[in-house]
């Protein structure tokens, strides 16, 4: 909670707003004593809107959509979203540990006997993608290569990799990824995100408040929310992004081909691959043509650029990364990224929460430069 308080203060300072200006509190009910009840009391806010949407790592894209909606409806003017986690310090084995269910549930009773890890769930999606479309291990590895290139330019990412004692804190090649050990077939170590500490906050305000902020605002122009789960006969290579993406693009009235920055939830390479396809950046099954040869690197002339902060793969992933997708989108549209794309005007932040090969959510937010 301390991390949330510090992040909110920093974000308000950045916007030139006061603690007492906050009248909307959005929180994913994570952390000790959090949630709408505990966090408001801890922070000392008396918000007129409290939203505690918790849908996994994409909670912040959902909350952004809700804050935008609530502000448009006149229910609040200055909304804050915040996140803080010490997953690394607490040695939480997010990817390979069990998900203990203290009370038996519908899901735990049907799945708990098989030892499925979070990583193996995503690995099953990758395996099916390889099988259905003839995508290649090299194509998936390219996502890690691009992400690491961006991470090496971001001092905070380098610090995270140093703190977590990464072996080889440098740019990597496709061969490096494929030579790293397999955690759950067919996912290699360097295709999996790190488990780090981290936190942040975002301030969303009404248009009249935005006129007087210290820094130029970035505008929310579209949002979409969706969920997807395992269905009999369903196609697990298609994510919730196939539903949330078109809703957001239609609302924003822009096309995927107009987007400069794609901040895509990179829990694993397969998450990026499916979400890029589902958002319409590549035909289904063909993300490989999009990511090849470092095409999505920040210094490549190709229009689209991917995960310029270094992503969950190489900069931070404290458990729910959705907030950082929004923060880096804002940096890019303000010209503040460590891998700045000249003239970036439009960004997409797409969060994926839960299990890509099971029950998950997709939240898409489209942002525009002032």
């Amino acid at each position: 909670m301390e991390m949330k308080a510090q992040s909110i203060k920093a974000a308000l300072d950045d916007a030139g707003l006061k603690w007492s200006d906050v009248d909307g509190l959005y929180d994913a009910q994570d952390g000790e004593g959090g949630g709408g009840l505990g966090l408001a009391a801890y922070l000392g806010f008396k918000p007129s809107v409290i939203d505690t949407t918790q849908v996994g790592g994409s909670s912040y894209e959902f909350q952004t959509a809700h804050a935008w909606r609530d502000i448009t409806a006149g229910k609040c003017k200055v909304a804050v979203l915040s996140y803080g986690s010490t997953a690394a310090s607490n040695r939480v084995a997010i990817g390979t540990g069990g998900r203990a269910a203290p009370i038996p549930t519908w899901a735990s009773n049907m799945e708990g006997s098989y030892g499925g890890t979070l990583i193996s769930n995503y690995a099953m999606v990758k395996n099916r993608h390889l099988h259905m479309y003839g995508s290649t291990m090299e194509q998936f590895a390219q996502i890690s290569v691009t992400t690491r290139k961006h991470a090496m330019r971001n001092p905070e990412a380098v610090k995270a990799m140093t703190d977590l004692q990464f072996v080889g804190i440098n740019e990597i090649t496709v061969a490096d990824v494929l030579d790293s050990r397999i955690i759950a077939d067919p996912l290699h170590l360097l295709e999996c995100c790190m488990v780090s500490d981290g936190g942040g906050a975002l301030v969303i305000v009404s248009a009249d408040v935005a006129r007087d902020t210290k820094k130029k605002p970035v505008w929310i122009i579209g949002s979409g929310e969706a969920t997807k789960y395992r269905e009999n006969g369903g196609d697990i290579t298609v994510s919730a992004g196939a539903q949330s993406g078109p809703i957001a693009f239609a609302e924003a009235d822009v096309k995927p081909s107009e987007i400069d920055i794609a901040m895509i939830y990179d829990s694993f390479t397969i998450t990026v691959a499916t979400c890029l396809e589902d958002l319409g950046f590549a035909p289904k099954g063909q993300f490989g043509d999009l990511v090849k040869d470092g095409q999505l690197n920040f210094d490549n002339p190709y229009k689209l650029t991917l995960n310029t902060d270094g992503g969950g793969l190489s900069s931070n992933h404290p458990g729910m990364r959705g907030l950082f997708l929004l923060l880096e989108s804002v940096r890019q549209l303000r010209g503040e990224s460590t891998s700045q794309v000249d003239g970036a005007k439009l960004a997409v932040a797409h969060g994926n929460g839960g299990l890509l090969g099971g029950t998950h959510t997709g939240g898409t937010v489209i942002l525009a430069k002032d």
Partner: protein
Amino acid sequence: MPNRPQPAFPEPNTQEYWEGVKAGELRYQTCNDCSNVVFTPRRHCDRCGGTNLATKVSKGEGEVYTYSVVRQSGMPGFREMGAYTVAYVDLDEGFRVLTSVVGAADPTKDIKIGDRVKVEFEKQDSGDYPIPVFRQV
């Protein structure tokens, strides 16, 4: 013998499924109103919302939809197992289960998507319930 985690009760949605497992049956449901195949088990139809469901017994035959071989696991009961599989299997009656494909000499090489598999009820070291797993045929 393996020692997989057991289901726990009371849990009304899955009780009948596990009673079937104990009796050597792989049970699923269909909706009497709209004929939808319902699985994972529950007490309403996920297509029409109706509660008029019939319980049926599957032949237990199907194919591997996708799978992964877990090489690193911190889960009790699995940590010591070495590489093991988790898989989605599509049963011929039209439902998909999360399960494990057992019996392959080298699961990293000997299993393919699309392989035909059949259910078996794996006895456990402890607990009342065997666990349904699948073996290649």
